[in-house]
């Protein structure tokens, strides 16, 4: 089963247009100006999808699609957005009335989202009546999606308004075979779906190795919670990381593929690491000693991550010494993306989130950005049977 990456670009553009159309519908209905922040298509396991809806209460609609493109869309508003919409469209309404206003808005917006796909496919896409959903995590996620363990493509758009917090997300999870059929005939540049899956799995092993390295170094119990490979327009990469403040390291890697590895800790996590690694009281201002502790950890995590890739790809990948960074995620990404944008329009963004098992207070993002054409080349040459060779002997690393 081959995937044509170029047609994936086309579909990503359709998803962005669709999200813009949904945003325009919302603006018309409520008078609130909204803006598509980021659209990408990710390959992930359905169980990772539920993390889209962790950390808040969401309301929205689920609509099933049929005919030319089977699958489902989930359009969800965060809590503040739901309140703004309900108050705008059903002021003083009962809960039931407010629920139906969300359903109606969600239905109109989803129709706008789907129209572009139908036009592109020159056909109609049947849509089911909307099902209201609310809650967090698995309450929101479609039961059918959560049940399977096969990796799926997910088109994700995040739409925000600058004035009011009326952010919404649209997720479109097409059925795999249906999407591949819609993507059309494949050319020489196509990559097998299996190889993409293997590479994603391999990245997950790399992230698990990096998480183990955190535990070995700091004693903090960590685990990889989310792992996904996204295909993102290059200009959208900084927005995909967001404006949250992070402490971390940036490394450039050379070889096949070349690229960048960015490891970002939120502030409490970076402080926990420094507390564990630096045996004296620190003032939280990221002194030389604290910076070198973060860099040392970054170095070891990178080795674990990159060596796994090199083993499976049978290539030699070296990396530069880590550079300490402390800033907004999007600002950290901008010079990296600037360098990559000279030669590529889209990026493969491999994003793994490491959290602590119990309370989720520890938060680390590992973002790998391999050169797009070099990654395509190594994936062409990848032998799927080498997929299990990601293990790296810690003694080689330390």
């Amino acid at each position, binding site marked *: 089963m081959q995937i044509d990456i170029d047609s994936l670009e086309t579909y990503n553009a359709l998803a962005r247009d669709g999200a813009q159309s949904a945003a325009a519908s919302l*603006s018309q209905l409520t*008078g*609130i*100006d909204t*803006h598509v*922040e980021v659209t990408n298509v990710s390959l992930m396991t359905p169980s990772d999808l539920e993390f889209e809806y962790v950390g808040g209460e969401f309301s929205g609609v689920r609509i099933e699609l049929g005919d030319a493109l089977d699958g489902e869309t989930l359009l969800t508003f965060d809590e503040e957005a739901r309140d703004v919409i309900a108050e705008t469209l059903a002021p003083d309404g009962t809960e039931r009335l407010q629920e139906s206003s969300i359903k109606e808005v969600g239905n109109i917006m989803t129709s706008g989202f789907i129209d572009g796909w139908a036009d592109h496919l020159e056909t109609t896409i049947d849509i089911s009546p909307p099902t209201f959903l609310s809650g967090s995590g698995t309450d929101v996620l479609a039961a059918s999606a959560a049940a399977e363990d096969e990796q799926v493509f997910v088109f994700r758009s995040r739409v*925000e*308004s*600058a*004035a*009011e917090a009326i952010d919404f997300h649209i997720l479109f999870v097409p059925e795999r075979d249906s999407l591949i059929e819609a993507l059309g005939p494949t050319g020489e540049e196509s990559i097998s779906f299996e190889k993409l899956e293997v590479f994603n799995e391999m990245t997950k092993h790399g992230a698990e190795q990096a998480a183990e390295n955190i535990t070995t170094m700091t004693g903090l119990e960590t685990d990889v919670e989310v792992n996904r490979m996204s295909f993102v327009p290059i*200009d*959208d990469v*900084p*927005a995909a990381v967001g*404006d949250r*403040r992070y402490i971390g390291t*940036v490394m*450039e890697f050379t070889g096949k593929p070349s690229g960048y590895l960015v490891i970002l800790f939120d502030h409490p996590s970076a402080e926990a690491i420094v507390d564990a690694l630096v045996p004296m009281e620190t003032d939280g201002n990221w002194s030389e000693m604290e910076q070198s502790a973060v860099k040392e950890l970054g170095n070891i995590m990178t080795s674990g991550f990159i060596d796994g890739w090199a083993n499976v790809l049978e290539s030699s990948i070296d990396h*530069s010494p880590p*550079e300490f*960074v*402390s*800033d*907004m*995620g*999007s*600002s*950290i*990404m*901008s*010079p*990296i*993306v*600037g*360098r990559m*944008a*000279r030669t590529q*329009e889209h990026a493969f963004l491999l994003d793994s989130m490491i959290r602590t098992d119990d309370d989720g207070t520890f938060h680390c993002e590992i973002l790998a950005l391999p050169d797009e054409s070099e990654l395509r080349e190594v994936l062409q040459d990848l032998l799927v049977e080498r997929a299990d060779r990601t293990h790296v002997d810690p003694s080689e690393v330390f």
Partner: protein
Amino acid sequence: MARLVEGRAGLTDRVKISIADYAVATEGLLTTSGLGSCLGVVIFDPNTGVSGLVHPMLPSQDEGGSRPPERFVDSGIDLLVDELLAAGADKSALRAKLTGGAAVVDFGTDGESIGDRNIATARETLSSLGIEIVGEEVGGDCGRTVHVDAETGTVTVKRTDGVETEL
């Protein structure tokens, strides 16, 4: 992607601009965040009260062939000026303010950073168009968030080290 915000009150008076994006407005706020090595170029006409903000990532469109003009400092400025004139600005009255161009990540091997080259290209392009730069908050190693009051062209720059400047 141009969005002209005109005569719309209340909730819609703020437009967020992404990377490789721009907007022109006669009232309300134009905002952009996550400015690292990218630039926030503000061009405004104080007499007619129209302002524009573009958020380019790389210095020159030469490096990108047929790519989106908003992504580059030189072509982004040209585009913004065209849109400002279309929105009623007077070319001879245009003034500019520059923000961004930081070296958030020190790559060490580059010689001049992308941020420095972006700043230099903006100065050259604006000079060749005869647009005076009346305010700057550029360089350094911090990310920035920028707000532009569209009516007056007043720019507020918030750096991630806590320093806030009004231009």
